[in-house]
């Protein structure tokens, strides 16, 4: 099983967690009911060591599963050894994007590097679909090196589906990110467009 984008992953996550939630609520409800019964007998005996082994398998197996099923994990870990198809670098200061291209057009399957630098506060860099769902994100920390050069916050992302994505900061940086009536001043509509993939936009 491999997830080609966040939509597929999140749909799987929602289904799996909903099933788990229903199970855990039902088990405790059943347990509570049987606690009050005189002749209640164990339906299953769960040996302690098997239970612990199950928890270990769940905790470790979850990461092994996602490492193999989510492509951006290995890409992120080894990003310094990957040559991107294109790189975009821009900055943020006083809740404003600086040097931001008007629009980025990406061919299907291209791996893009985003390098964002902050002059002042902690911000976020997040791409969103038109329906508001999250494509990807990272934190943008401020800071400079000994020579006064701004610290990089870089992320690689491979786009496998067509789509037009909006940009905004995903981290709170104070109320001045918004106008008095709640308009997000860091929101950039239709910032990224991915083209050339077969099938519908995702």
């Amino acid at each position, binding site marked *: 099983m491999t997830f080609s984008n966040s939509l597929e992953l999140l749909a799987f*996550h*929602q289904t799996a*967690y909903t099933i788990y939630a229903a199970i*855990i*609520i039902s088990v*405790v409800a059943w*347990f509570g009911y*049987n*606690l*009050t019964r*005189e002749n*209640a007998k164990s339906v299953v005996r769960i040996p*302690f060591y098997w*239970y612990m082994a199950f*928890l270990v398998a*769940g*905790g*470790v197996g*979850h*990461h092994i599963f*996602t*490492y193999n099923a*989510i492509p*951006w*994990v290995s890409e*992120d870990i080894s990003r310094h050894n990957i040559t991107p198809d294109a790189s975009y670098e821009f900055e943020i200061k006083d809740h404003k994007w600086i040097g931001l291209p008007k629009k980025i057009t990406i061919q299907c399957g291209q791996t893009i590097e985003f390098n964002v630098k902050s002059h*002042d*506060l*902690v911000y*976020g860099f997040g791409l*969103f679909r038109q*329906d*508001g*769902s*999250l*494509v*990807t*994100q*990272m*934190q943008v*920390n*401020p*800071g400079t090196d000994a020579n006064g050069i701004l*610290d*990089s*916050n*870089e*992320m690689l992302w491979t786009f496998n589906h067509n789509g037009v994505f909006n940009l*905004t900061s*995903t981290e*709170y*940086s*104070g*109320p*001045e990110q*918004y*106008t008095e*009536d*709640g308009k*997000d001043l860091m929101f950039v509509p239709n910032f990224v467009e991915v083209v050339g993939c077969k099938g519908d936009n995702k």
Partner: protein
Amino acid sequence: MSALINGTNFDHKSLNALQKVTLRAVVMSFLFFGLVAIEGMIMKLVQTGPSNPLPEMFSHPQHYFSIMTVHPIVGIFGSTYQLVFAAFMFLVPFLTKKPLYSIKLANAVWLLITIGTALSWIAAFVWQYAPLYTLYWPLPADTKQFSVIGGIVFIIGVALIMVGTIGFIYNIYATIFQKVGVHANKTTKELLISGFGIDGMLNLWYKLTGRQPYSKEPALALPVVAIFRGTVDTFLDAIVILSAGVLVLIYLIFDASGSPLDVTAIDALLYKNYFWWGLDLVADGLVLIYVAGSWYLLATLITGQKLFMENVARAALMLELLVSWMVWSHHLLADQGQPEMMKLISGEMVTAFELLTQGLALFITLVTLWKARPLKMTFPLKYLLGGLVGFGLAVPAAIIQADMGMNRVLHNTQWIIMAHVHIALIVGLYMTLYSAVYTLWPIVTNNTKIWSHKLSNLHFWMYLIGGIGMGALGGMAGIDGMLRRHLYVHGEFNTLMVLSAICGTMVLIAWAIFLFNIVMSVGIKGLIGIFLPAEDPSASYGIEPETIAEDHKVEEK
């Protein structure tokens, strides 16, 4: 009307000093709970969109984020800390059969936390100081966006809370290490070994190597061990928050003096690591350990039996000490400057270990209850099961996100704050605390009758369904991309927010029902009497813990 004035059979004059100081903190805790629930509902209603019934000012960013800043301060410190501290300052003397070290200090604790919380709230309300509880550097020192005075008042408030917290810590350890009563002949070393759970670990090791147990009768009861262990994290957390507060205060004072300091002197990522290390001790150290200890206590009090696998439980509490210190990096998985090995080891692997420690606590509690069946479905048992459900839902929700793959699409969304934090606190922690309240109610209030069991039942179901519903629906919005620290005023996630708000309203109404029931039980006179000086200065309580189990036994036919 008579019940409203006089209560059922509550007599505040019969309470000793320990009982009164416990109840004072409990009262303040539930008042702050009401405030935090109202704040939460205001934010929730703003998120439903422009047709919400609130005045427009609540949708203004300054106002909205001021509320978001104090919401966790009031909720976690004003309410949760107060309730937990009150329970533990009563339980440690109760379980060790020794007097509390200092009633005066216990009074100072609830007063400091109350005043500190109020000051922080005032800073946000009056000056709209809104750097959020995360205090990401240099936002709290950003005087272009925030008032210096507001910042100073806020930080003083938080500092008072932390000073109160240190007072609690001192009182707990001073009580545990008092060489009186059953501990008259114990050495400090014996109490330390027991407090850290080392005796449990040694007992297991001796059993494996075919030797007699290291300690047949550990110096400290298991719940006291959990309190001892959790309090280590409470201390470290207090030091970190206090030192971060001092740093912010220094910058604000220099700014006010006209000679602002250079904020870039502090590395934002290093600060984030330091702050999260401390802050995470609240969630992953303090809460999980205190909760595990509370479950063990409640299970043994309800059943009147020894805890299942007690040595394993003791050893696990020792292990949690190390685990809780090494998990903070799961908050920094979206920070690209964070070293990958720290993300992998601290953020993923050690964090996943919490599934084991919490799963173990769940298992031990359930088996202890199961072995004692049949039990009456009393309020303490009912709420305890609710607490187990809460953590059963909330812990895996966080473990799922503590993963480099999942974090990329869930970080800073409503998933973590609603499906994890709110369900862990509202359902997991508070249900456990309600169980403790109902368990301890007869002994703290000298057998005061609860005014209405029907209302207690109504509170339980509304609170449980509302709490889970609000968290789950908010979590779904997170999956749909809704951020947690962002202003949504156009009803972008309207359907889920409306449903979540309905569930949140259930929690708020449940709180009102609980409060009404308690006021009707103790009466207005009694409520005032709690805050009057106690005639009996005793700092301990004499009932044996074993007697509580009698209320939960099914009568033999």
